[in-house]
């Protein structure tokens, strides 16, 4: 495989712009969670939200007039990745470009609003404006319309591993000569109902800080945003391998699937950008890493950025690519004493390890 990352863009609770967010991560600055509540309950949670001014400058396209937050995040990140790719591989012909979206919960805000109206006022009051925005592929459709891209467009759904599976799909699509590039976008929006659902699933902690690699795990904080990767045959960062991983039945089995996946990608001079988020994932990853790559430098951004589910693996890939380019990783929650910021980073490869909350594991390895 000769696939490369030609451009990247992200919208995060720490802001937008690869360098802007990266520098904050290097300084160990984290986003500040905001309280999130809902009229259906007295319970309140915290979530890492994208600030409104982060999306300033989006094109005034009619498709964005009523679009949900997830679509706006996706469009902003996607357009940034295209702009970035222009500086590395030149103009991208959207007629020879495919779109692959990765989402987990999709347009949950409009979905909840739509169903709330159904419950409150009856089916006859349901809004025909909201329903189309509830479909998983609405964000992909909006971005395609803005770009004028009329070719292949896929939306994949899954858990935190879905972003890696989307990169795998891009690699498969780029097997055809009819495509030059594939824009992979992972996106998610946060809502109270998701916080409550994950809380009932015993995965959420209500207030910061997010503590990684603790036994027992203390819980995660939900996040939102988007990450976009322009995958092409040229570009500064190479995708060495993509492993579709596997599924685990129970949380207690996650470690085995993570270890098997990691085993196939392990490399002596690779760092690992993991998916530890303060839940059972941390221990599964930690134990698998101890067995397969005991000396690896490991970093997870989820203490700083939260768990953005559908967007999270795209963010991990961006961090891994940035680490290889900048030859440094932000300080690691797990191994900061042994590997302080900026000092002694000698990795030429980076593994993105994505273990999701709902049974999926996948990984990929980058090199420079």
């Amino acid at each position, binding site marked *: 495989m000769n696939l490369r990352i030609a451009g990247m863009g992200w919208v995060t609770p720490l802001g937008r712009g690869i360098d802007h967010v990266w520098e904050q991560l290097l300084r160990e600055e984290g986003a500040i969670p905001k309280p999130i509540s809902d009229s259906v309950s007295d319970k309140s949670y915290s979530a890492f939200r994208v600030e409104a001014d982060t999306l300033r400058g989006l094109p005034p396209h009619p498709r964005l007039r009523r679009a949900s937050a997830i679509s706006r995040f996706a469009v902003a990140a996607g357009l940034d990745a295209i702009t970035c790719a222009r500086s590395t591989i030149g103009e991208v012909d959207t007629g020879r470009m495919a779109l692959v979206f990765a989402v987990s919960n999709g347009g949950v805000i409009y979905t909840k609003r739509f169903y709330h109206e159904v419950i409150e006022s009856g*089916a006859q009051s349901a809004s025909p404006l909201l329903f189309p925005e509830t479909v998983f*592929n609405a964000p992909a*459709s909006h971005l395609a319309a803005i770009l004028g891209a009329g070719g*292949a467009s896929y*939306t994949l759904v*899954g*858990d935190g591993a879905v972003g890696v599976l989307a990169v795998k799909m891009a690699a498969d699509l780029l*097997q*055809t000569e009819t495509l030059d590039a594939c824009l992979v976008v992972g996106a998610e929006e946060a809502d109270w109902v998701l916080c409550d659902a994950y809380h009932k699933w015993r995965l959420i902690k209500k207030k910061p800080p997010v503590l990684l690699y603790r036994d027992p795990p203390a819980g995660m904080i939900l996040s939102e945003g988007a990450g976009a990767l322009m995958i092409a045959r040229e570009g500064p960062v190479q995708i060495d391998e993509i492993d579709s991983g596997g599924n685990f039945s129970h949380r207690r089995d996650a470690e085995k699937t993570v270890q098997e996946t990691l085993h196939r990608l392990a490399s002596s001079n690779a760092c690992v950008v993991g998916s530890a988020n303060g839940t059972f994932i941390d221990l599964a990853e930690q134990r698998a890493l101890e067995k397969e790559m005991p000396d690896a430098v490991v970093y997870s951004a989820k203490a700083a950025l939260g768990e953005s589910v559908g967007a999270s693996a795209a963010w991990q890939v961006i961090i891994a690519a940035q680490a290889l380019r900048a030859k440094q990783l932000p300080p690691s929650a797990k191994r900061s004493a042994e590997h302080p910021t900026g000092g002694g980073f000698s990795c030429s490869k980076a593994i993105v390890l994505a273990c999701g909350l709902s049974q*999926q594991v996948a990984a990929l390895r980058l090199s420079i």
Partner: protein
Amino acid sequence: MRTINDLSGKTSINRVAIVAAGIVSPLGFGLDETLSGLKSNKDCVLPVSRFDTAACRSKTAGQVLDDRLNQQLRSRKHRRLHRASRIVTAALEELRVQDPDFEPELTVVGTTSGGMSFGQDYYRALHRHNGLRKSPEWIANYPPQKPVIDAQEAVGVSAPCQIIANACASGTNAIGHAFECVRSGRHKRVLTGGYDALSELVFVGFDCLQASTPEKCRPFDRERSGMVLGEGAAMLGLENLERARARGARILGEVIGYGISTDNHHLTQPDPSGSGPRRAMEQALQSARRAPEEIDYINAHGTATSFNDAAEGKAIQELFGRVPVSSTKSMIGHSLGAAGAIEAILCLLALQAQLLPANINFRSADQDLDLNIVANTYREAKLSVTLSNSFGFGGTNASILLQRAPA
């Protein structure tokens, strides 16, 4: 469409066999019942039994019978699963019985709404501040990948899952992508298909858009008034033809072409010119290196909405002339993410049984469309290649070509 195996430019095109298939739809459980349903031109659309439709215009859907589904409950765990998991499991079990040696490297499945009704149960319980005891169970079984992982576990398969949610084109997109993965040589065996279970939220959604009808579903009819929803699952085992032959697998048919396009006209309405569907169909023909005259039957998307049938009909008419066309949604409703996969299996059965499935409830032709509709009763015919269309919200268009099994 050529594929690249490496940057040296070496190309590879492998033939892709369907080695096993399983189906659950309102027509029945399994290939035999489904074929029998096709031959009886069965109208499976009934009043919705799963939720209250009193406030909706439309009140009917094609539904999978619960008593049949419940016969398959084997354990307490199975009972806790979402209905979608049980539907997918039943389809996958049939596939597995046909070819127990089929071990997929990858699974690509389409859906639109996963375990949506559990999401509804959870939100309703939140809203009434009562009955949340079961919420962890609902939440755990809500994600769209869960029914596929559950079904794989039930039959002893463990392959990574890519779940495509391209609205109503999801099932055809899944088969198309799986086909390309095998054809390019990247994978030897891919499990694919689609599923969806009826849910109130989606039912009300189509109702509020006035896309669904309170009457019969009459695709391509002059007086068509909208779609009827459905549900079900269909799974197909795709394998490199040579490898399948080498291990002595039974070849049910071949997938020979796939096309995909995006229509940016509107989030929910196709460009009236039919350009989006036309591009998908043209691409599928190019991919298969077939001419329009070589197509013997088209299983249309044919939702019976005014906009879809006009745009699709125009594209079919321009590209294929008087090729026989039917929309089997007239019999079973529109099963959304499952539709493309179910219709692929209906094409497979049509190729095997040499028949053209009927477009039932058809009364009079749309004067703007010159189509050869297989009206009301199935017809016997010589078929070698069929085309199946699926189009969805978001402007996704997908077409696949299936060919009769090689002698």
